[in-house]
């Protein structure tokens, strides 16, 4: 492989030719046929090994200079490929692979070396040269070997003399560059002497013997051994590294505890000032010089440029020293230890404060960069900033080779030959922003590389200048890709002074790109839990087999939300454990589900709740396209809110992302659902959930968008709607697919990769079973139908959760290779097949998947680097159909970054550079927002507006989903029609007028047509403002009509009117938004075309309108002042209580009270408003009871005498005041009750018993009552007679029994008389008199 690269570097083969060779399929045609460069042919190398080799080569070359940001990701494929090409034993590969999972930063490790070198050379009293080299290179080797966790383990392999020497040249700049980087911190340690000694030993062997051997790849076994022995103390993996740090830190006791992640959080931000303190160690190096003579001089380091001019770098040793002092915080660790201590404490405190939230992600130097922080820092260290970041075009060495490399590299990226283009971009930006030490002058490297036999092993990236040069070259070639990044990234690029100085052309283009970019990206505010609304069509009784199932499910739903609420409240508390707290509850619930076979209902609820809660990128958030939050913000366009949102983002967003290739995760609320599935551990549930997810995925995957007429004025608007719709669907699909993937591969998940035997048998077994969801078919169909933009992102989510075995199954192997074909074929460029951003999204997710898969131990890298990528699977329908989503512009930066939040790492990296460079901390592109005068009209307060927006969202919550769809559809159509209408009416009219005006003016002045046109148009613009009024009017008219026609007839009036209003508002908003941005342009365009036509001939047109009105009625409110039935019952109850006893002493009821009570009773019964059947029934019963008690004189009544005295002359019985009460009761029974009063209860044994016991034996009230019943037609004589008859059967006192008999006879005779049609009242008295006379 090196040979191939060598050819390019020697310019014997053009990079293009090499790429051509790479792309050529050896199986198909012969090399000659393919026009393969003969020199390449003669090498007869397998192409597939080249790219990994090349990528590794670049990493190795640049390794020691990359101090910024996390190292490009763990386990690049390179390691293995490299190993392969070198024919190395598998032993090493294994170790690398294992270690490869961690994200330790090799760059920092390399810094170890660099720093050491710098330290050496800095010590003014030492002569530079060989000793420095020997000091340096062993450190390098050692560190590499010792850290198999390195992301580019193969770096070690390239330890060659030329390589080793680079630090020497770098160090001066490097050292100054150090300041801002936490990486340095770790790097510093190796300086500690004991370790160094060990390393040195290893290194010496390297330097002497291994140079030639290690040329291409690597290192000789001796190296390896040495490395290994070093490993024991240095060793790989994040953990061990920490230990190492600990060891080294501990030797100088007064230094910071580097082990303490709290004090030194791994954030770039923190680097800012932590490094100020650390370098004290780096300065100690003086003793190093003592050792130098001992180290073996190396031939290749003959020149001693650095040592010759130490003073050139720093005005004087003293000033240098001072400088260092400032920077490092303390030079003399020996001296002011107490001062030092204080400082350390302060630093620790500040550090804690600043970085409490930072992730414990260990040593990966998180590049998130709060700019603010950097300001403070740079302010405190003014000189540093300048010194460290300077890179000069003039100091670039071996430009030609760099050009060749850049060209080759760019081509590899452009042709998608690398597994993840964004990762490479990240790498390039790392180079761009590197702060490695730069050599002072250009000649040095000539000499420096002199001894190298091949161009390949020469050190091309040994200084910052070269790195930056290379990076800028690559960026320049990748301009189109870059220009599609989000605005913030573009801003940082455009502001990057290195780009500005290395390529003014690129700088200019970037500035333009920035200025024209509208691609602002924001992540979201999380929203709180919302429930899934109950929809009768799917949730009511008829959807369940039995009442029991229905009712049990009712409980399940409530339990589910109870769990969710508990989780929401507590999951962030430290001691809270999902399984411990919720596990048993969940399983109990599952048991109930199983008992009633309600799994499918629950699975649906579960799935809907997932979508409801986790659509958004930030945990708990909802998708930005479709959420109340976003809607609110859009609607309000309100400064305060959006500012607040941005602020929140700054706090929230960065933490959620880990490096450019984070593993799949379940952030935020998704965690709940994942843990729920795990805790439930229910086979049935999982199966139903999978079915449900599959169904929903298939449904969503079949998305069709409304076909739109392109290039028309209102197409923009429709595009927006479609984009929004697409976004929602895509986000939902990805979410569901992730859960599906999780469920599908869950049974096969293992912590450790299976052994080889197990692996094979598992593959053999699982090759026999069918996949749950046929992603292959869907993928193929998507490719054919050109709908990959929708399908691939979710398939990637699905596949990202594969277990160790799945990638080896035939089925998934096919899927991966198909995806690879897609990836390779999707060269980022704008074409009509697919828009650029669509491609970028696909490339980004696929790149992430590939990169992530490589991190699964045992997944073969050949998966990607196979040269047998066949293109034949990619047959596409050439017919462009409405289904061909790929060709629509659906993806914007917002969606791209939402789907791939890791792309934000690019921005963080750049920002961290700005942060470190101090001088230009503000950036030179400044947005000046003019403070416009606030409109005088009182605007509804922000909270009010927000509330309204929330209300609107809430409105749809419990309505069937179709309502929302309808409203949105109507809004979209009406909005669009509105624009058409405006164009057809208002604009047409204006154009007509313009025509007249123009005609006149043309006659007057025939010279300047453009000026004329402008004049006329300006006049028209003001009238164009009418468009808004007309637009509003149009929407207000058309919206409701459409909604009314489309919604079911039965929709209630309130719902209908709200739906109408919302539709109108949305439509108006759409139309007005479009009009406000386009109306002037539209008028101008129309006028211009008319004008140009007019200059030849003439002619426009006009349409019409119609009107309609709707009215609604409102129910009249009436005042119901009658007492409530409950009050009356209560009062009667009180009376009954007193009547029935026991009573307190002389407790009694006033007559007037009773009178009043009956009056109220009547009112209450008349007013039906508050009456319910039970109340009325109770009232009837109570009043009968009351009557019985009255009749039998059981109620102690006050003021009865007074009443009797009023009518002294009248007959006692007839005018007894109680008779008045009874009459009132009778009238109430007759007139006021609606229900039939069970008056026969008067004849119950109990009630008659009261009468029988009446003290005075005055039974005339009873008789009065009975006659009243007849009189009021409540009972017939016959009825009463028969009741009286039957009463005689009981054992009464003899006198009462006689009375009953008498009464009975009375009613019997009255019955006869009644038959003779006589006045009953008259007769009663007569007959009663007769009866008494007889007795």
């Amino acid at each position, binding site marked *: 492989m090196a040979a191939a690269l060598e050819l390019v570097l020697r310019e014997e083969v053009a990079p293009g030719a090499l790429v051509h060779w790479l792309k050529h399929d050896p199986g198909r045609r012969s090399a000659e046929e393919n026009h393969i460069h003969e020199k390449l042919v003669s090498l007869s190398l397998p192409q597939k090994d080249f790219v990994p080799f090349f990528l590794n080569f670049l990493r190795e070359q640049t390794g020691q200079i990359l101090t910024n940001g996390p190292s490009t990701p763990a386990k690049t494929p390179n390691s293995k490929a490299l190993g392969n090409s070198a024919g190395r034993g598998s032993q090493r590969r294994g170790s690398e692979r294992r270690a490869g999972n961690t994200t330790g930063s090799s760059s920092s490790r390399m810094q170890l070396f660099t720093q050491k070198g710098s330290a050496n050379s800095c010590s003014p009293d030492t002569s530079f040269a060989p000793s420095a080299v020997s000091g340096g290179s062993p450190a390098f080797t050692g560190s590499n070997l010792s850290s198999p966790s390195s992301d580019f383990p193969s770096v070690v392999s390239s330890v060659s003399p030329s390589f080793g020497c680079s630090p020497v040249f770098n160090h001066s700049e490097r050292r100054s560059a150090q300041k801002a980087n936490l990486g340095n911190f770790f790097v510093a340690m190796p300086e500690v002497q004991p370790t160094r000694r060990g390393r040195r030993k290893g290194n010496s062997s390297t330097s002497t013997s291994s140079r030639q051997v290690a040329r291409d790849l690597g290192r000789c076994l001796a190296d390896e051994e040495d490395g290994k022995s070093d490993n024991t103390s240095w060793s790989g993996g994040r953990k061990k590294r920490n230990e190492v740090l600990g060891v080294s830190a501990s030797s100088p006791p007064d230094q910071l505890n580097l082990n303490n992640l709290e004090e030194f959080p791994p954030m770039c931000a923190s680097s800012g000032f932590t490094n100020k303190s650390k370098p004290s160690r780096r300065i100690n190096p003086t003793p190093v010089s003592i050792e130098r003579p001992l180290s073996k001089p190396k031939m290749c380091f003959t020149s001693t440029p650095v040592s010759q001019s130490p003073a050139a770098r720093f005005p004087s040793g003293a000033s240098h020293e001072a400088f260092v002092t400032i920077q490092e915080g303390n030079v003399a660790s020996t001296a002011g230890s107490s001062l030092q201590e204080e400082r350390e404490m302060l630093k620790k405190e500040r550090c804690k404060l600043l970085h409490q939230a930072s992730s414990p992600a260990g040593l990966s130097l998180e590049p998130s960069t709060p700019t603010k922080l950097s300001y403070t820092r740079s302010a405190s260290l003014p000189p540093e900033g300048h010194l460290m970041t300077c890179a000069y075009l003039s100091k670039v060495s071996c430009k030609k080779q760099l050009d060749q490399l850049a060209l080759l590299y760019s081509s590899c990226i452009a042709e998608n030959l690398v597994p993840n283009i964004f990762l490479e971009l990240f790498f390039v930006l790392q180079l761009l922003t590197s702060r490695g030490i730069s050599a002072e002058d250009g000649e040095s490297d000539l000499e420096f590389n002199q001894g190298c036999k091949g161009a390949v092993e020469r050190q091309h990236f040994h200084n910052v200048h070269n790195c930056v040069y290379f990076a800028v070259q690559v960026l320049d070639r990748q301009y189109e890709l870059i220009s599609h990044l989000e605005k913030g990234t573009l801003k940082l690029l455009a502001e990057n002074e290195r780009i500005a100085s290395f390529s003014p052309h690129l700088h200019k283009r970037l500035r333009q790109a920035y200025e024209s970019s509208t691609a602002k990206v924001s992540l979201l505010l999380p929203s709180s839990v919302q429930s899934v609304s109950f929809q*009768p069509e799917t949730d009511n009784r008829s959807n369940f087999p039995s009442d029991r199932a229905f009712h049990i499910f009712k409980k399940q739903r409530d339990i589910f939300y109870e769990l969710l609420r508990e989780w929401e409240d507590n999951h962030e508390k430290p001691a809270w454990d999902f399984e411990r707290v919720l596990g048993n509850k969940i399983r109990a619930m599952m048991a109930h589900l199983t008992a009633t076979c309600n799994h499918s209902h629950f699975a649906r609820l579960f799935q809907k709740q997932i979508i409801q809660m986790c659509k958004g990128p930030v945990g708990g958030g909802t998708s930005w396209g479709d959420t109340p939050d976003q809607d609110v913000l859009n609607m309000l366009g309100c400064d305060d809110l959006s500012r607040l949102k941005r602020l929140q983002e700054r706090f929230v967003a960065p933490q959620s992302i880990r490096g450019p290739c984070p593993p799949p995760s379940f952030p935020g609320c998704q965690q709940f659902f994942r843990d729920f599935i795990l805790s439930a551990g229910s086979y049935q549930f999982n199966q139903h959930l999978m079915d449900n997810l599959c169904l929903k995925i298939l449904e969503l995957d079949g998305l069709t968008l409304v076909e739109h007429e392109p290039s028309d004025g209102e197409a923009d608007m429709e595009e927006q709607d479609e984009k929004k719709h697409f976004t929602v669907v895509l986000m939902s699909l990805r979410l569901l697919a992730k859960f599906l993937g999780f469920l599908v591969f869950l049974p096969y998940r293992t912590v450790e990769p299976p052994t080889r035997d197990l692996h094979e048998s598992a593959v053999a077994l699982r090759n026999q079973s069918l996949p749950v969801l046929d992603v292959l078919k869907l993928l193929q169909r998507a490719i054919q139908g050109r709908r990959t933009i929708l399908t691939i992102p979710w398939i990637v989510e699905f596949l990202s959760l594969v277990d160790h075995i799945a990638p080896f199954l035939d089925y998934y192997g096919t899927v991966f290779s198909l995806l690879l074909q897609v990836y390779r074929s999707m060269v980022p460029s704008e074409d009509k097949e697919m828009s650029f951003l669509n491609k970028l999204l696909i490339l980004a997710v696929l790149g992430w998947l590939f990169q992530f898969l490589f991190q699964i131990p045992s997944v073969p890298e050949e998966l990607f680097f196979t040269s047998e990528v066949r293109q034949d699977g990619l047959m596409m329908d050439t017919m462009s159909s409405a289904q061909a989503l790929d060709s629509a512009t659906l993806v914007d930066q917002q969606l791209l970054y939402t789907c791939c939040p890791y792309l934000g790492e690019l921005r963080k990296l750049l920002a961290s550079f700005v942060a470190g460079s101090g001088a230009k901390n503000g950036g030179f592109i400044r947005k000046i927002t003019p403070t416009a005068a606030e409109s005088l009209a009182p605007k509804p307060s922000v909270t009010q507006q927000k509330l309204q927006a929330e209300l609107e969202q*809430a409105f749809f919550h419990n309505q069937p989903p179709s309502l929302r769809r309808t409203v949105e559809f109507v809004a979209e159509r009406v909005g669009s029609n509105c624009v058409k209408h405006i164009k057809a009416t208002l604009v047409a009219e204006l154009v007509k007028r313009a025509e007249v005006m123009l005609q006149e003016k043309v006659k007057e002045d025939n010279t300047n047509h453009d000026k004329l046109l402008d004049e006329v148009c300006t006049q028209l613009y003001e009238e164009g403002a009418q468009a808004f009024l007309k637009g509003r009017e149009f929407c207000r008219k058309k919206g409701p009509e459409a909604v009314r026609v489309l919604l079911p007839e039965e929709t209630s009036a309130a719902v209908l009117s709200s739906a109408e209003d*919302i539709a109108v508002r949305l439509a108006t908003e759409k139309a007005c938004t479009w009009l406000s941005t386009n109306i002037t342009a539209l008028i101008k365009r129309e006028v211009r075309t008319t004008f140009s036509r007019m200059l030849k001939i003439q002619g426009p047109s006009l349409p019409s309108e119609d009107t309609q009105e709707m009215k609604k009625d409102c129910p009249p409110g009436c005042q119901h002042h009658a007492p409530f039935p409950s009050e009356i019952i209560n009062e009667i109850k009180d009376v009954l209580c007193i009547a029935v006893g026991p009573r307190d002493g002389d407790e009694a009821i006033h007559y007037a009270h009773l009178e009043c009570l009956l009056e109220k009773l009547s009112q209450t019964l008349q007013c039906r408003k508050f009456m319910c059947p039970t109340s009325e029934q109770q009232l009837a019963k109570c009043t009968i009871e009351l009557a019985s008690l009255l009749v039998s004189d059981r109620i102690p009544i006050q003021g009865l005498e007074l009443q009797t005295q009023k009518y002294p002359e009248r007959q006692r019985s007839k005018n007894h005041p109680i008779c008045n009460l009874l009459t009132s009761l009778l009238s109430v029974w007759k007139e006021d009750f609606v229900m039939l009063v069970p008056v026969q209860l008067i004849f119950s044994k109990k009630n008659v018993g009261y009468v029988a016991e009446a003290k005075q034996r005055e039974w005339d009230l009873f008789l009065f009552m009975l006659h009243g019943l007849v009189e009021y037609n409540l009972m017939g004589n016959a009825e009463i007679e028969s009741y009286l008859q039957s009463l005689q059967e009981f054992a009464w006192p003899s006198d009462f029994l006689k009375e009953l008999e008498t009464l009975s006879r009375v009613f019997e005779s009255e019955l006869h008389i009644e038959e003779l049609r006589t006045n009953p009242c008259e007769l009663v008295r007569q007959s009663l008199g007769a009866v008494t006379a007889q007795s």
Partner: protein
Amino acid sequence: MKLSKAQYEEIARFLGHVQPTRQSLRRLKERFPSQSQSTLLSIFSQEYQKQIKRTHAKHHTAEAIETYYQRYRSRVMKNAAAPVLLELANEVDFAPSLMARIVLERFLQEQEQGIPATWLAFGNEIQCTWLRSQIIKFPSSKTLINSMLRDPSQIPDGVLANQVYQCTVNDCCYGPLVDCIKHAIGHEHEVLLREMLLKKNLSFLAEDQLRAKGYDKTPDFILEVPVAVEGHIIHWIESKASFGDESSHQSYLQDQFWSYWNRFGPGLVIYWYGFIEELDCHRERGILLKDCFPTDIVTLRHSMAQH
């Protein structure tokens, strides 16, 4: 009327062990004149119910039942006109209506199954054990007993009928009359609420309409178009004609309010007779408490289109 937890506890302490009579209620009103009567009655009733729940079981052992029945019989024999049953209930700290039920049930067993009271009093131990098990095993039909309690005229024994009636009328916490009053109050407040909603022009679906549609859990009203009350969006309103104390609120949350939330989103509960202020802690989550119809209502305005 919102009460602080301390205020409420003062009332509850005063109630301690009181009998559910109108006299107790009178004293309560005198002690806390500033509180509304209905609030006090509601708290009284709830506190008393809690007390009864705690002691319910001990009054329902076969032994207790037998003792009460015997005592009732012997006292009634002495003086049928005296409020025997009521006094018995007060003596053993039990609700009169519930005491009436126990005695009535035992009476019916004697009538229907021919288990004479004397057997238990004078029979041998084996007989007694058997009979006790019979008493527990074969209760008289619930509907019959309920119907007799509602209308004591149906009770074959006139004296017992009077005694039972006296109990149910005098009991101000339990019994068919009280149940009916509570029901009526609940209904009236729903009607009131409905009136207010109509007056405010808020469109809603009532419980019966919802049931007809097959909803499994139904609040009193679901707003067809949600509104915001004091800045919180609500989808439904539940009317509670009682005082919201801790235990009743907890069980309502569990059985009703969260269920509504789970289906329809956030909502409003009106405790017409007030509630303990501290319970109104789920506003953010979506359950809002009020003691009256809210005045600060923001509706979905459609003014936006006009701006």
